[in-house]
């Protein structure tokens, strides 16, 4: 916190300097692991950009505080503002304030409710949720072909919490990929929820094995359920080379499972990249360049081939 204050003071002193650009950043909750990595992506970007000053503020999950921060940014004459919204349904006020003052505003990671009506000079930077399940399923499709199962393969799908948007989207992605001619040899034989949960993933897989379900691949909506499935498959003595298995999130546990050869595919959401991307987009708007209203930072596919790049990222 002290560092932030000093940074803010330093930034205020810099305002008078001719070529310096100043960006105000309000993060919903800096304690949040993912958001902390995202903030790091911003400060890293600023560190290698001469003349760029960041004023980084923590909104501490307080909607009112975040709005105050944005208004203070505007009052102190920043060149652009980046907001990681506390409440994605309360973004209109910030959009209005920034638009009135003519200050560029970039939302990052959390999609604002008014994303489709953002005025000029405002944008949203994040990863496209559609990509995660799609990347996962495509890679599993590729691996199955590589194993010579391109003429027909059974897959089982482990779904996250039924009420959760990411679970619904990722499961839809699996269906969409299978609908393409390239991967139409894959057939879903079972699809059930295990609530994102490892123990429930274990239970679900054991129940499937008991039933005698024959499958060539396991597509899980997240890594925890995939790891649960791996534990159950091991306990039941199912041969490792008889199936391909993938998850999403690239958690520490998943990466270690992958290093041990237990997991084939996972997907990394690039927090650092989203942070850097938001600054990049803000600077472009400031310079008057044309940017898309939605700027997507790609999810990244993690496999044993490139796992080294991800071990220390989360």
């Amino acid at each position, binding site marked *: 916190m002290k560092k932030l204050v000093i940074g803010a003071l330093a930034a205020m002193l810099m305002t008078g300097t001719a070529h310096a650009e100043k960006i105000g950043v309000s993060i919903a909750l800096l*304690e*949040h*692991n993912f958001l902390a990595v995202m903030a790091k992506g911003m400060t890293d970007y600023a560190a290698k950009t001469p003349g760029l000053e960041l004023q980084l503020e923590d909104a501490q999950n307080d909607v009112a505080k975040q709005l105050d921060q944005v208004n203070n940014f505007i009052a102190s004459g920043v060149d652009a503002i980046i907001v990681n919204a506390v409440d994605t349904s309360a973004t209109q006020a910030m959009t209005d304030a920034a638009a009135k003052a003519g200050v560029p505003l970039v939302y990052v990671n959390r999609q604002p409710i008014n994303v489709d009506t953002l005025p000029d000079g405002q944008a949203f930077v994040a990863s496209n949720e559609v990509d995660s399940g799609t990347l996962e399923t495509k890679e599993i499709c590729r691996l199955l072909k590589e194993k010579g199962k391109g003429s027909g393969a059974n897959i089982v799908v482990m*779904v996250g919490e*039924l009420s959760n948007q990411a679970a619904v989207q990722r499961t839809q992605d699996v269906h969409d990929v299978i609908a393409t001619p390239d991967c139409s040899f894959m057939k879903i034989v*079972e699809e*059930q*929820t295990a609530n994102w949960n*490892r*123990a429930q993933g*274990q*239970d*679900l897989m*054991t*129940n*499937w*094995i*008991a*039933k*005698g379900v024959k499958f060539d691949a396991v597509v899980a909506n997240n890594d*925890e359920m995939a*790891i*649960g499935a791996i*534990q159950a498959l091991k*306990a*039941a003595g199912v041969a490792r080379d008889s199936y391909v298995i993938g998850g999403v999130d690239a*958690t*520490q*546990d998943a990466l*270690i499972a992958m290093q041990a050869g237990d997991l084939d595919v996972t997907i990394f959401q690039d927090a650092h990249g989203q942070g850097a991307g938001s600054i990049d987009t803000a600077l472009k708007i400031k310079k008057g360049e044309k940017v898309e209203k939605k700027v997507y930072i790609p999810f990244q596919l993690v496999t044993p081939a490139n796992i080294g790049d991800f071990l220390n990222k989360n």
Partner: protein
Amino acid sequence: MTDVAAANDMFTARKRKSLPAEMNAFLGLVVLILIFEALGWSLMGQSFLFNKLRLSIMITQVAVVGILAVGVTQVIISGGIDLSGGSIIGATSMIAMSFAQSSVFPRAIYIEQGWVDLPIVIPIAIGLGVALICGIINGVLVAYVKLPSFIATLGMMVTARGVALWYTEGKPISFPTDGFKAIGEGLMPVWIFITVAVLFWLILRYTLYGKHTYAIGSNEAAARMSGINVERHLFLVYVIAALLAGLAALVLTARSQTAQAMFGTTNELDAIAMAVIGGVSLAGGRGSILGTAIGMLIFGVIFSGFIFLSVDAYYQNMVKGAIIVGAVALDQWRQKRQAMEI
């Protein structure tokens, strides 16, 4: 002394009458199994029940909540309710696991302090210690401060979840030692559940502790008149419930080989539902561990049965809900009938 004996007699008479409660649950279990068995042969071409792996997973997948339900059952019999079990599982799991990590994992939480590869008694003792503290707070609030048990344990439900989230700011803790994993491996959760269930079945049925629990749940004023130290007894009931939640947490953590802050969420409601389905009366004073165990098996059969038939999880929840409501309706009807007989 004679008063206590009289109260005991009264309670034994009540208990004999409550036998059909378990019978209902047992019949329900049998009917469910028969339905799945018939559907299995007609739709899947295989037996539902006579499958060693399915039989074992049916019990294993509900054993953790079953352990919790044993503790909840004695609370309900004493006339109270315990909503804190699921959150105590979360807090216990996180804290115990941080002392059960293997040095294989370079980012173990206490690796700098050298607290890795510890003998399993340490995480077990620390875990049960956390649960004990929660139980003491619950017990004091209910028995001595006289808060309604719903409120006191609701407070603990929120607080213990807060502790679980605060401990690592939501980050999971993984990679336990092989010794710790053994607590949850294979059928170990089932054996632990059976041990706990038999122990508490005997305690509730044959010891003074059990008799006092029923007596307080039936009529607290009468129990007090007959010389039972109601405060001390209720305190013990809540402490034991929390300790069993702690034990459930250890089993779940070892089985998952990870601890996550949201572990145990809504488990308290499943535990209450198991007890209620098994004929434990929410009005207190009636029910048994045997009934709860049957309720637990009904849950296990439903989970496995629906996966067996590849039924959508949406329907599973609807059926689960219907069974809970049906069981309570049956309980109400039975109580009314009993009241009329008296």
